[in-house]
């Protein structure tokens, strides 16, 4: 951490993004971002994905539009974001105030053997988001910038996008429940109340 050029550690980043999370709603993309969010603590307001690659940010959009008073944070990986990069165009048209997309960019497909993704060759996701029209869009390299992003996500003053450059480290898996029905039902019950169980 003393070396300003050192890459951030993904679990430090996610722990900071979720610090004092209050009623923040969190979508986690499949693979390591799911394990990172789960390592920060299992929570009914998490919707961690075990599949549906490419869908995390659009799940975030649908949720943000449905719950305009709640803050929605999508934590996903560079490979997952790239799979449906066009989502940034769809989201940029809607720009809900309460949506933040944090891409943990290790420049690798981590689950499949650490093969390089296009960001390893310089593909700039933050610039793509900016070009789509998401004005609060940045590359994050320091914990101070992660804290700023955390505050943006919790304040919800406009759609925000961040490409967070992280160390390509392989960490122990910390898994949430895998049953999609449990994840869906407890999330809906937490957000919508017990009524959600009856319809």
């Amino acid at each position, binding site marked *: 951490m003393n070396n300003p050029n050192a890459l951030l550690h993904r679990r430090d980043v996610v722990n900071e993004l979720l610090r004092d999370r209050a009623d923040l709603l969190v979508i986690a993309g499949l693979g390591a971002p799911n394990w990172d969010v789960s390592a920060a603590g299992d929570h009914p307001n998490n919707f961690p994905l075990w599949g549906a690659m490419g*869908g995390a940010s659009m799940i975030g959009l*649908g949720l943000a*539009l449905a719950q305009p008073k709640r803050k929605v944070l999508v934590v996903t990986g560079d490979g997952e974001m790239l799979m*449906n990069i066009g989502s940034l165009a769809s989201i940029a048209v809607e720009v809900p105030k309460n949506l933040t997309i944090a891409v943990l960019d290790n420049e690798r497909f981590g689950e499949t053997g650490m093969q390089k993704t296009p960001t390893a060759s310089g593909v700039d996701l933050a610039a793509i988001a900016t070009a789509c029209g998401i004005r609060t869009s940045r590359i994050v390299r320091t914990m101070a910038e992660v804290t700023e992003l955390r505050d943006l996500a919790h304040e919800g003053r406009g759609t925000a996008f961040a490409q967070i450059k992280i160390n390509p480290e392989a960490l122990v898996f910390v898994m949430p429940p895998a049953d999609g*029905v449990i994840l*869906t039902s407890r999330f809906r019950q937490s957000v919508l109340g017990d009524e959600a169980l009856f319809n």
Partner: protein
Amino acid sequence: MAEAAKSRGEAPAALPTWPDEIYHVLKDAGIRQVAMVPDAGHSRLIRSFEADPETRVVTLTTEEEGVAMLAGAWLGGERGVLLLQSSGVGNCINMLSLPVICHMPLLMIVTMRGDWGEFNPWQIPMGQGTRPSLEAMGVIVNKVDEPHLVASAVQGAAHLAFNTWKPVAVLLGQRVLGAKNFKELARK
């Protein structure tokens, strides 16, 4: 098509009423989010939703985005509908895992190509593959080929989707929509 009919001395067909009927059916079903990649067959319905301050119409770059978006809507307590063309069904396949494994409702209204009266051979593979690919993923499929049955098909599909948390697709056949023929237009 109306022009072509006129030039052959036929009376132009009356405007179909089913787009307005399904707009009201979908409103009654509580639809608040409309995710779509446009199709000519859906244009009247899309205009109705765009004019409706209670619904949010989101244009997608690819149809699978809509499957994910409507899962998010459901997590947040809102109901949505995905409007797409049959070719777009192919773009959705893996993303359909999400509503299937999570027992989430998904209502899809699919306008068919590569079906009755098709002129474009490139539309055939996905058009003919639409129903089997949806069914292979666990989506309940109901195809409609008569205009007067469209509204009840959509109503039944909405009930099925939102009361039993299933992905359900209504396929609107080209007998309902009218088959395009760009070749005919090109000759004029």
